[in-house]
């Protein structure tokens, strides 16, 4: 059956694309002009030459590089940890027989709907007791494995690993962990990559919890962005130069891995 799209379809998609780009372009535009230009009646349509100046001012105004380092460290560690533990548990749920497997898996799925964000107050009290408030431990440890990750890897591994392969490894005398390492891990690679990406993104963009546990002197990127706009007078050239700069790493990630992200969402790598 032919469902060849006409100009209307391409036109609408193009309009949508422009709408997607417009706020980013606007951010860069404002970030590349000096303040004076922006108070004119008609806003400029082309970038000015002050982006680097403004970006430098933003970098000086907040602990920018420290924030970048923190965000990279936290997001990278959390994503790697989530992938490891989720693959391990997903493998067990998909391919190993043990008493209570089904109820435990149903429990995992049920916790998907639990808004754990609302446990912030006790979590904060616990972190304070542990002396982790203000440190990256407070961000890393609570995120080390997720219900979504476990379920996602389980769904993938159920079909990705033939049961015979697991049997064969067992007959050869492999321990379960060894079986996991040499059978499940290679098979899990595509899904693991997608899970890593989405976990990295979610951790990188998180705002609520870092705002609660981190001090101004040791922020993540999102918290640094918030600091840029504090004060009564907002210098938008500086703020949006900072916002643009902070978006660049994710844009790069998107250009490199966008295809996998699309595939991941369409396969059900979804978590609102």
């Amino acid at each position: 059956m032919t469902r060849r799209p006409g100009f209307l379809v391409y036109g609408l998609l193009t309009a949508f694309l422009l709408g997607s780009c417009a706020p980013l372009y606007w951010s860069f535009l404002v970030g590349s002009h000096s303040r004076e230009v922006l108070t004119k009646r008609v806003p400029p349509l082309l970038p000015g030459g002050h982006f680097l100046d403004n970006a430098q001012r933003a970098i000086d105004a907040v602990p920018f590089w420290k924030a970048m380092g923190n965000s990279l460290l936290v997001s990278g560690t959390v994503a790697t940890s989530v992938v490891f533990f989720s693959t391990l548990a997903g493998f067990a749920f998909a391919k190993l027989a043990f008493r209570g497997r089904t109820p435990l898996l149903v429990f995992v799925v049920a916790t998907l709907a639990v808004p754990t964000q609302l446990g912030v107050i006790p979590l904060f009290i616990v972190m304070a007791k542990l002396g982790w408030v203000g440190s990256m431990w407070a961000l890393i440890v609570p995120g080390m494995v997720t219900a979504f990750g476990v379920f996602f890897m389980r769904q993938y591994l159920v079909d990705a690993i033939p049961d015979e392969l697991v049997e064969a490894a067992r007959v050869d005398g492999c321990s379960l962990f060894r079986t996991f390492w040499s059978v499940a891990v290679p098979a899990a690679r595509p899904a693991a990559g997608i899970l890593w990406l989405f976990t990295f993104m979610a951790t990188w963009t998180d705002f609520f919890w870092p705002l609660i546990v981190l001090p101004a002197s040791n922020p993540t990127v999102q918290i640094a962005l918030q600091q840029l706009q504090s004060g009564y007078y907002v210098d938008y050239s500086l703020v949006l130069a900072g916002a643009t700069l902070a978006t660049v790493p994710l844009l790069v990630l998107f250009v490199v891995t966008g295809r996998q992200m699309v595939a991941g969402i369409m396969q059900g790598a979804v978590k609102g």
Partner: protein
Amino acid sequence: MEAGSTAVKSVGDVGGPTSPTGPRPDSADVRRSAWRRRLSRLDTVVSPYVFVSPFFLLFLLVGMFPLGYTAWVSVHQWGLLSGQGEFSGLDNYRRVLEDRYFWNALRNTFSIFLLSSIPQVLIALGLAGLLDTQLRFRGFWRMSVLLPFVVAPAAVALIFGNVFGDRYGLVNEILQGIGLEPIRWHVDTLASHVAIASMVNWRWTGYNALIFLAAMQAVPRDVYESAALDGAGRVRQFVSITVPMIRPTVIFVGITSTIGGLQIFAEPRLFDTAGLGGSDRQYQTLTMYLWELGWRVRDLGMASAVAWLLFLIIVTFAVLNLLASRRAGSLKGLGRKGAAR
């Protein structure tokens, strides 16, 4: 982890070459292989639990325990700095329910949520319909709708806070350019909700469109063919075949965005500099209200009461979610597939 990794060393390392058909079984070998068998037995029984335990331990620690403990904190006087005080029964709940800012935040949350979820789902459906055609450069178009998703909510909020600026904002400049009155986006309640909802819509519409697209591609193509034979046009097919057939996915997206939408924080928090939801809290959401009580007023008891109330609201929706997906059959056969060892 411990049991798992020791098991690897003892069984994995020697297991391969010395299989049951190994040469010359002397008594030491027999003893060792009995030992090995017992280890392997233990491995089979225990390791699966070890593999799944990190999730359960962590969930207990940072999910279950905090939610329970929130209830405990909520029935005490509890200062951010002073810590646990007197048992106060339901007093915190009473104070929350008597606070007009609680009801204000509840109203705002639902208003922003409705303004973001309904247009978002409708536009995402249309967009998915556009993508579900034989496009040239299909990969490019799919990627293009995902672009906003990679911009962090904090950055989105800063950008939109400027675009919707009351004075030099882009939207108001355009409105004035075409001879309309500027809108006070940061002052008027409904206007501020529209501005904040537009941030959510901008970031999530394309993402949801891809989920819908995946569902649409599972619709058998011959259904369309027979509809086309019956003379149904493209739009008619979309409305009366595609959308009904992906209804479970629509419900799924609707309810997951409810769970997220009711906890909205970064966008309204960063919409202005003060971060309290406007001069009269006209766009303060429940999560912001919780944050203000806990970390501004420093009353963790009252903040916990809010957390619990919000939790109950969200769980109500989550139960609906479960019922909907049960009916949609997405949980069917869970755990029944793949039972090797």
